[in-house]
């Protein structure tokens, strides 16, 4: 143990003696570790955030289309449905005895780039995300009038709106739409809490409210002036999609088959988990590419370390000969150099870990508001420890190269160095 302590001290002092190059090496390693761990954490968070978009929903039903497509427009509000489905079909399926609840969704308009979603009270009652978390109101209440709207957290934040403010809904999806429906403003009845899902970027109105947007101006005026109608009783001709919750999860597959073979019209029912996994396969290749790049950056950092140790060896042959003379065994010389590699990589990794978690702590709010990825700033997890461990092992393995070289030389050089 004494010898190990002596060697450790020697390695530390020797590195301190070459502190400029050592610091640069540590810097390179810490930067590469920061990138590596940062990408890993972002990957994990992106994936978890992605998988947490929707939960507790057993089936998503829409007009016949691919699973990924249906998921994209119904849950992520990206792109447009190929077709709508009849309200009649929705009613028939939602009245099935095995069905616990349904949430109808109608997509269409957007306001300043935030998608307008027509739905019912069921949305706020049954929609779940993450670990079966319900939608909570940060302010206000659900819509109970035709011209009421409920904003997602980010939509409210970005547009600077709060409960009671008017909001103008426009035709089309783009933020710079030509046709503005300036003549019938909606009123914000409530704002949802942040979820880290596409719900944050949605403007929710009742189905009737969405329908009313498309009526002629004269009708809109009379509706606005007339008695408040019961928005829950309103029946549109068609909707975009609906979410289904079954009374028992076991019944899901049978219901999916029934919907897919429904005779009234061509429908598709997808299981969210399956569709999410399919979509992630598409998105995930980017994730893998990022991980691979980060991995190579780490290897580059370690190769820099290898170079700096190898270059130092020549000028340190006398040092090695001296250590041999005072009785250090060649394995001790080997250990000394592996320790140096371990110290450099260990210090670099430590700084990298600190930088990553400081960065996550600081950047998490920004990432969430910009990309909707919820990063939970937890401490280093098991996965991080495994990654750091793997990098350290690699560093020690690379350190064995100069160590072996020094070992061979120390055997051959004898006491005096033949330069």
């Amino acid at each position, binding site marked *: 143990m004494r010898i190990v302590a002596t060697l450790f*001290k020697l390695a530390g002092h020797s590195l301190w003696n070459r502190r400029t190059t050592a610091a640069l090496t540590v810097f390179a390693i810490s930067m590469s570790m920061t990138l590596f761990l940062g990408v890993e954490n972002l990957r994990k968070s992106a994936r978890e955030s992605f998988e947490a978009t929707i939960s507790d929903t057993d089936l998503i039903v829409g007009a016949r289309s691919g699973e990924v497509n249906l998921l994209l427009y119904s849950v992520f509000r990206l792109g447009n449905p190929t077709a709508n489905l009849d309200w009649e079909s929705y009613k028939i399926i939602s009245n099935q005895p095995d069905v616990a609840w349904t949430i109808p969704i109608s997509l269409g308009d957007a306001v300043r780039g935030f998608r307008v979603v027509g739905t019912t009270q069921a949305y706020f009652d049954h929609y779940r995300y993450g670990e079966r978390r319900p939608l909570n109101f940060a302010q206000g209440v659900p819509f109970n009038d035709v011209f009421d709207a409920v904003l997602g957290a980010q939509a409210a934040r970005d547009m600077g709106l709060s409960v009671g403010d008017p909001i103008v809904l426009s035709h089309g999806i783009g933020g710079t739409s030509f046709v503005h429906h300036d003549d019938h403003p909606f009123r914000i009845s409530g704002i949802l809490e942040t979820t880290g899902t596409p719900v944050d970027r949605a403007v929710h109105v009742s189905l009737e409210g969405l329908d009313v947007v498309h009526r002629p101006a004269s009708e809109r005026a009379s509706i606005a002036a007339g008695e408040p109608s019961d928005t829950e009783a309103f029946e549109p001709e068609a909707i975009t999609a609906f979410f289904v919750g079954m009374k028992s999860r076991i019944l899901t597959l049978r219901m999916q088959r029934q919907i897919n073979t429904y005779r009234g019209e061509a429908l598709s029912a997808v299981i969210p988990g399956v569709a999410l996994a399919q979509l992630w396969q598409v998105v995930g290749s980017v994730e893998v590419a990022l991980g691979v790049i980060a991995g190579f950056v780490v290897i580059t950092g370690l190769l820099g370390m290898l170079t700096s140790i190898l270059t130092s060896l020549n000028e340190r042959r006398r040092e090695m000969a*001296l250590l*041999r003379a005072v*009785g*250090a*065994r060649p394995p001790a010389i080997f250990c000394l150099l592996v320790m140096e590699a371990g110290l450099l990589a260990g210090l670099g990794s430590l700084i990298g870990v600190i930088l990553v978690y400081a960065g996550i702590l600081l950047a998490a709010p920004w990432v969430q508001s910009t990309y909707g990825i919820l990063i939970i700033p937890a401490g280093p997890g098991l996965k991080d420890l495994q990654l750091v461990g793997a990098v350290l092992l690699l560093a020690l393995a690379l350190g064995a190269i100069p160590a072996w070289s020094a070992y061979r030389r120390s055997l051959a050089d*004898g*006491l*005096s160095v033949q330069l």
Partner: protein
Amino acid sequence: MTKPTCAVRLRDVTFGWHKDVLTLDIAMLDIAHGERVFVYGPSGCGKSTLLALVAGVLSPTSGEVQVLEQPLTNMKPGARDRFRAEHLGVIFQTFNLLPFLSIIDNVKLGYNFSRQRRARVTKTTDGDSEAIGQLLDHLGLTSEIRDRPVRSLSIGQQQRVAVARALIGSPDLVIADEPTSALDTEARDRFLDLLLSECNKANSTLLFVSHDIGLAKHFDRTVDLAQLNRAGASTGEAACE
């Protein structure tokens, strides 16, 4: 353990760095315990090789090397390293010290690789720092010098620190490879006096190698390596100019 009477004993020792070319071929060399032996030889005569063989860093191609009546040639490399750490002190011509360690830590290197040697240091005095302090005092390295970085020492001072490292823990055998060649005459004589008196105190045998025949008068016995080394004689002027 009683001190062995024979410190170094070589019999028919040959060594070659390259196949078929012998650098060293010594029929017989005996050094008694407590002797101060001066090995004289111009450069290229195998002096360093001889020291490496005695130190057990190199193994002879043939023949037997005994140090303190222990046959080094029969030991495993690890055992030879332990033996060297425990019983030997080595002083080089230059670069005796690790520049990134303090003077004290450089001296401690002398016993850091052997438990027994460390035990000897702490047994004779109150503690290791006490022992190092005494040794450095004897060598004229005052306490104000001791805190200075190794780099700032003169070569003479560095060589004296090297003596302290070699002699800490009273090794049975001290080998010195041209330790004075970088010193001027005055510093050289002072250095030799200190080295010899410290070896006396530690009761250590001294094997001192140099090309400077003028130093021979300080020693009990002089060995001319050019005569002793049959390989040098047979390869002629090229190896021993």
